């Protein structure tokens, strides 16, 4: 099983949608999430046009930024997308992007 397929097949439970973020980063989170949603749209467009280089770059960016903010699953998906783009795994990428959309719609943030 490769790349995004692994992510898709991994069962997401409630805990995966819960994120803890440092209190002093709270005001940055709305912009961060807004940018992730724009990123999701760009991922979809890139996949539709089979632009694997852009998919790889976007995955790489997600990998770096997600966990830095405390959104570990964004980094995990980013790695799968980067790997899937390298191997040209279109189906896996599609699954991954769907998983990303679901994650962004369900994520719950606790500031501490």
């Amino acid at each position, binding site marked *: 099983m490769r790349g995004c397929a692994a992510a898709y097949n991994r069962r997401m439970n409630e805990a995966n949608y819960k994120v803890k973020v440092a209190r002093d980063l709270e005001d940055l989170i709305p912009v961060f999430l807004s940018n992730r949603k724009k990123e999701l749209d760009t991922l979809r467009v890139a996949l539709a046009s089979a632009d694997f280089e852009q998919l790889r770059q976007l995955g790489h960016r997600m990998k770096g930024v997600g966990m830095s*903010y405390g959104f570990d699953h964004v980094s995990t998906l980013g790695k799968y997308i980067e790997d899937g783009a390298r191997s040209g795994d279109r189906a896996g990428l599609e699954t991954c992007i769907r998983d990303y959309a679901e994650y962004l719609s369900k994520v719950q943030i606790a500031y501490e």
Partner: protein
Amino acid sequence: MSAQAFRVLVVDDDPDMQRMLARMLEAEGMRAAAVPDGDAALVQAMASPPDLVLLDVMLPGMDGFAVCERLKRDPGTAMIPIVLVTALEDSASRVRGIRAGADDFLSKPVQRDELIARVQTLRRLHETRRELERERLAAEVNRKESLRKAFARYMSPRIAERIMAELGDEGTPFQRGPQRVNVVALFADLRGFTRLTESTQVDEVVGLLNDYFAVISEAAYRHDGTIFSMAGDNLLTAFNVPFSQPDAGRRAWETAHDMAKSVKPVLSRWRQRGGSTTGVGFGLASGDAIIGNVGSPHYMSYTIIGDAVNVAARLVQLAQPDELLISGPALHAAGATASGARSRGKMALRGRTEPVEVYAVGL
């Protein structure tokens, strides 16, 4: 925020990363500025060098390695610590980063504790280095100031400044070996002073001498002369040393006139208080002399020795109050400025086999 805050330049093309890194650094009391690419990083770092650069490797256009190399190559930015932000598993990037001159690495995704620990470590190193540099510069300034003050006792402020400006590895002109130079030597001597010391209170004698030397020294400095000795009531000033002065003859001539004019009010005040000095005599000669440090390991002075000095010394002994006796070559060197001198013919001077052509001028 304090003007002394540690300034970090964040270079990352992802605005979310820029904001997050800046926020974390600011939470530690640092000041952060962010730019999105290598070109902007170079412009910003050169225009306003930060205390540290947090540099992402993957940038649009010029990558982080190239930016790092450029910053480390430029003397203005070479000392700025650079932390390269690379993917955790990317050991090849770290090797490239080391070759590019990076000081440290930070893994992406960024762990806050790791970021702060690495930046704080480099901050301490940077501040220690900056403090040492400040101390070194302060010591250098103090050393130069001490030298400048020492020089200012012997020569005009302009010449002292020039020596300081040209201070190089070979040291000051006074630290070099002896040199043979064509100089113009001017002696000034206060007439009647020796008799005066026998009949006047010590404090008053010293007061008169101080006033006298103050005005004639200032006159010497106005014409960029270098004072070689001040003994008793006698002052030796020379020109064309330690730096070349093509118009040394004119300068010496004008200095004698300036000294005579400047000292008159001092002597006049002294006479009004009952003193009895009669005036100042001057001797002026030009010719070869040896310049160098002469003495013993315990006492040494920057000294001028030679025919010009001997002739000027003999002439000042023969000069009447308010009179300048000048040798023929020195008068010739003074050029068109020198007028009104009357020939005294050839005079035999003590210690010299050949007589000297002498001219006299009233001051």
